[in-house]
């Protein structure tokens, strides 16, 4: 990969998906795009870039998809789900006792392990939730991962990471070497394609937003913008859950860290500075249309 190839990829990914590839992320391009190049009959990243430059919108979309897909597991990092069961839901049960409704958004739902983990937690608590309307919305940039998430079908490897065996037996049905999440759990999750860079105010207001391990790929300005818009998509007493290595602290006042609960943030009540409605550049709309995103 030549420096100019790298620069081309860096700029295109930044414009289309907000993905911020600093110099030390070159390994990510190699590891994600070499397989795609091979699959497409191309010898190297240089040829891959040439094909992108030749104007193939569908191929550009494939490249973006390969770069933005993240690996995920059931009950990833465990602690956020302990918080969910142990304090978030109990507090919401009190706070929404009159409304009897909970809206949860998995803002980087990926292949579904996170929203289905939440659904299983809620199913375990179903006695306390009788008569409640619970909505889990899972969104992602990638159509491929949304399809997989909708299907709820996982490999033997995938169901053995993070998932206690008792939950596997209870909430999944086995067909050969594949396991599918039971229909009643799947029915608890709605799926929708969404680019976090775009306006999402039409989604309404949520009680809980999981936005884990996706913002780490964005640059500072993009992160700040998204935090501001997440705060506006959240009830004043709602909960934001970030990934293990992420924080809002030092970036934005719109959330404050929850003292004893690592990874949990609550709206601070401070309003963000008027945000731009989109962080995308002037050429972006055309590029996005071309990429089919």
């Amino acid at each position, binding site marked *: 990969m030549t420096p100019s190839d790298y620069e081309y990829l860096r700029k295109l990914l930044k414009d289309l998906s907000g993905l911020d590839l600093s110099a030390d992320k070159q390994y990510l391009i190699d590891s994600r795009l070499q397989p795609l190049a091979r699959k497409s009959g191309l010898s190297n990243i240089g040829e891959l870039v040439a094909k992108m430059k030749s104007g193939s919108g569908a191929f550009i979309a494939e490249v973006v998809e390969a770069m933005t897909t993240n690996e995920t597991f059931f009950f990833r990092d465990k602690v956020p789900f302990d918080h969910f069961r142990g304090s978030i839901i109990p507090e919401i049960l009190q706070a929404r006792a009159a409304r009897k409704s909970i809206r949860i958004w998995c803002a980087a739902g990926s292949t579904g392990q996170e929203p289905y983990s939440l659904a299983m937690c809620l199913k375990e608590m179903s006695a306390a939730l009788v008569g409640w309307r619970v909505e889990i919305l899972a969104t992602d940039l990638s159509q491929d991962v949304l399809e997989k998430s909708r299907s709820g079908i996982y490999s033997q490897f995938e169901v053995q990471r993070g998932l206690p065996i008792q939950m596997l*037996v209870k909430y999944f049905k086995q067909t050969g070497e594949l396991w599918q999440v039971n229909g009643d759990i799947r029915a608890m999750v709605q799926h929708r394609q969404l680019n976090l860079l775009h306006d999402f105010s039409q989604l309404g207001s949520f009680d809980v937003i999981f936005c884990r391990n996706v913002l*780490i790929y964005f640059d500072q300005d993009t992160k700040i913008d998204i935090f501001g818009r997440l705060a506006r998509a959240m009830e004043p007493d709602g909960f934001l859950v970030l990934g293990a290595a992420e924080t809002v602290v030092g970036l934005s006042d719109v959330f404050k860290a929850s003292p004893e609960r690592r990874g949990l943030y609550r709206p601070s009540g401070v309003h963000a500075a008027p945000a731009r409605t989109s962080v995308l550049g002037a050429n972006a709309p055309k590029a996005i249309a071309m990429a089919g995103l």
Partner: protein
Amino acid sequence: MKTCLVVDDSSVVRKVARRILEAMDFRIVEAEDGAKALDECRQGLPEAILLDWNMPVMDGYEFLGELRRMPGGGTPKVVFCTTENGVEHISRALAAGADEYIMKPFDKHIVASKFREVGLLPSTTLTLA
């Protein structure tokens, strides 16, 4: 240092499991069938047992029954690790007192995940993207 007893009739599997578990700071004891595993347990109960199902002389299911009947036999965490990947086997194993269940093929991530589930590893290990 915690001890893990690796019970499998395949020396290759025992070697792979040993490598994975030693990297997780376990002291390893090996046994090639359920009877030899019981002998090891009589000499000293390990904290963890990685247990194959199908073995000559005494299989994993029979070993588990014998283990749980031993004095103190309720304490070791037993994680099955077997090619038997059907729900019926899993349910039988859990009913007989297994703590967790790994369906082969396995890798270090799966072993770590299952060992965390049963409290043999701290759950504070982060999984970074």
